[in-house]
């Protein structure tokens, strides 16, 4: 399979592992954060920690757009579908995320019309096919998915649809990275930069990381070879005393990103003054809001939403895990009260959640499960 097999080629992987073993300085440990939850899953899925030198510690970051969404926002989305004649559409990842009164899947089992879609354009189609219903799309994601939501809103306007709206929870990655760097808890040597966000944003937005904080950041792909190469590139910079942004994922990520996608985003969205992130608190200019010209397709304008701040259960340590301060298995609820079938927080069920990845791929090595 093109673009997959070459990047999973065992001899290449073995060679990269050997290079990494040679480049690490004896007696030194390296703490590298992979920002993106997709990288966390890939690292565990491919067993990469088994072949990395033990002095390299990979720390998972907050790059999981479902995980950073506060419970109150999930409740707001579920409040939309409580209106009679409404259909709520969302990505599969949202279906098992706990709200205060259950997950969307549980609400669906109790009769709420909640449907999984693979794309917001599917939601638009459902609206066209169901003129008697109002169809709302629960939009989540970093810059990766914002363009398709933007294009969907532009299309809704083109079609003059009156029975469609978007509940916008898009967030942007740079404020999250900055919050990590500003946090006193973290001592990091470098970053594996987001792969798919960068296809939209390009690599320039990360230049503040080496410039203001002196840390290398390498934008990397998701296959084993990509991740190992990315780690190697970070280590080479550290070895040379350098700090810059590099692009390992050149086959997909253009340095300047996707101007058309960025234009679409900014024609439809603007930055919220602030937005609450689980674990990172209120961050200014970190989330997207639908512009007033598109208000009639903005679920927050069309519906009365509770807008309640719901704090995580006291014992849950979602915030610390999101920041990389705690490993998933160090949370007191991990594997006990909190597991993929009965999650306390979204990190345990999202396809980019650190707890989900750890639970799914690593627990054979973990005494928590003994």
């Amino acid at each position, binding site marked *: *399979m093109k673009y*997959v097999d070459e990047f999973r080629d*065992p001899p290449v*992987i*073995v060679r990269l*592992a050997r290079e990494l073993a040679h480049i690490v300085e004896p007696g030194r440990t390296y703490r590298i954060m992979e920002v993106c939850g997709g990288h966390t899953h890939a690292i*565990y*899925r*491919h*067993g*990469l*920690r*088994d*072949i990395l030198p033990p002095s390299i510690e990979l720390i998972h970051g907050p790059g999981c757009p479902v995980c950073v969404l506060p419970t109150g926002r999930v409740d707001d989305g579920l409040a939309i579908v409580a209106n009679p004649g409404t259909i709520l559409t969302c990505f*599969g990842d949202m279906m*098992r995320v706990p709200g205060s009164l259950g997950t969307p*899947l*549980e609400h669906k*089992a*109790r009769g709420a019309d909640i449907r999984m879609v*693979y794309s917001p354009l599917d939601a638009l189609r459902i609206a066209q096919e169901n003129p008697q219903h109002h169809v709302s799309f629960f939009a989540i994601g970093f810059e990766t998915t914002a363009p398709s939501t933007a294009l969907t809103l532009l299309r809704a306007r083109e079609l003059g649809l009156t029975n469609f709206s978007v509940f916008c929870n898009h967030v942007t990655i740079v404020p999250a990275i900055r919050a990590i760097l500003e946090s006193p808890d973290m001592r990091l040597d470098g970053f594996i930069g987001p792969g798919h966000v960068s296809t939209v944003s390009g690599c320039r937005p990360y230049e503040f990381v080496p410039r203001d904080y002196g840390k290398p950041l390498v934008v990397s792909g998701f296959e*084993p070879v990509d991740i190992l190469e990315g780690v190697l590139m970070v280590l080479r910079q550290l070895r040379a005393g350098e700090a810059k942004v590099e692009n390992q994922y050149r086959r997909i990520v253009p340095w300047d990103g996707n101007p058309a996608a960025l234009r679409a985003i900014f024609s439809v969205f603007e930055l919220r003054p602030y937005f609450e992130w689980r674990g990172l608190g209120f961050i200014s200019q970190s989330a997207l809001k639908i512009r007033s010209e598109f208000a009639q397709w903005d679920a927050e304008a069309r519906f009365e939403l509770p807008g309640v701040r719901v704090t995580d259960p006291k014992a849950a340590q979602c915030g610390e895990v999101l920041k990389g301060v705690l490993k998933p298995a160090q949370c007191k609820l991990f594997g006990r009260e909190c597991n*993929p*079938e009965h999650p306390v927080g979204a990190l345990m069920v999202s*396809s980019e959640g650190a707890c989900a990845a750890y*639970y*799914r*791929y*690593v*627990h*054979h*090595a973990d005494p928590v499960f003994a």
Partner: protein
Amino acid sequence: MRFKDVQIEMAHGAGGKASRRLVEGLIAPLLSNATLDELGDAAVLPFGAGRLATTADSFVVRPLRFPGGSIGELAVNGTVNDLAVSGARPLALLATFILEAGLSTQTLREELEALAAAARRAGVSVIGGDTKVVEHGKADGMYISTFGFGTVDERALLAAGNVRPGDRVLVSGSVGDHGITVLLARGELDLEAQLESDTRPLTELAFALIDACGDGLRWMRDPTRGGVATALNELARACGHAVLIEEDSVPLRSEVRGACEILGLDPLHIANEGCLLAIVAPQSAGAALEVLQRTPGGERAADIGEIREAPERTVLGRNAYGGTRTIDMLVGDPLPRIC
């Protein structure tokens, strides 16, 4: 284990962890008896001088027809296969139909013809059954339940308790074909592939192993809902050992691999309908593989791993460069109404 869920969800029908909790935490305790409590693929009762295997299965697949098969074939093969992996040739089947008002007779006729053809191919007769009709909107076309029984071959000494470290894990064919075929047949995704359900009776493959291995054949299973991963996790739990799978040796069609990559699915969690898992003693493994590969339906059979002492009750996957991961039982329900 107690079943604490307040209501039934789709996940309870997926064949994974939730299904197991429902059966082990609610259904089995309320009906408890020595035979049921073993929770084998088929229930085995002493019968005269021998043993009788009985099994029940129900089919709610959507759509009714898909490349390589239809609900009628699944209904026969699914039950025949539960008997086969228990070491029994099928003696007879019973079939019940729940039909939706508005179902076209032509569709029903086609399914009955498919069922009849599958029964002939499997060498079994449908000797009775029942039919009910429910209102339009209450049965999605039709639901079929089948019940089968057969005598267990005296050479078949199959039990998870017989499995020991050093035993080999064999699979009779490529994995994930059925689930992905049905998923694509729903037409909800912009994906097409040259792929067919692998539905087939496994009796000949199972008996080829019994003939070749005798008591070197420890355990068999047909990995339907929940896939190979779920079946191996159930084995690991039951025998107390570890199962180590060499991931690159699992036979996988490129179409299934591609679809799973795009959709973020694990082929090991996808349902199969014509594939057999067997645990065999190491000294029997060579002969077992050879005989599978010579039997129709077993051409892609492969040795995919081994049983180890530790870590206990765990299934591990190892890739070609030595990276390992846990292979967990299916959680949730990525592909509902798959069989």
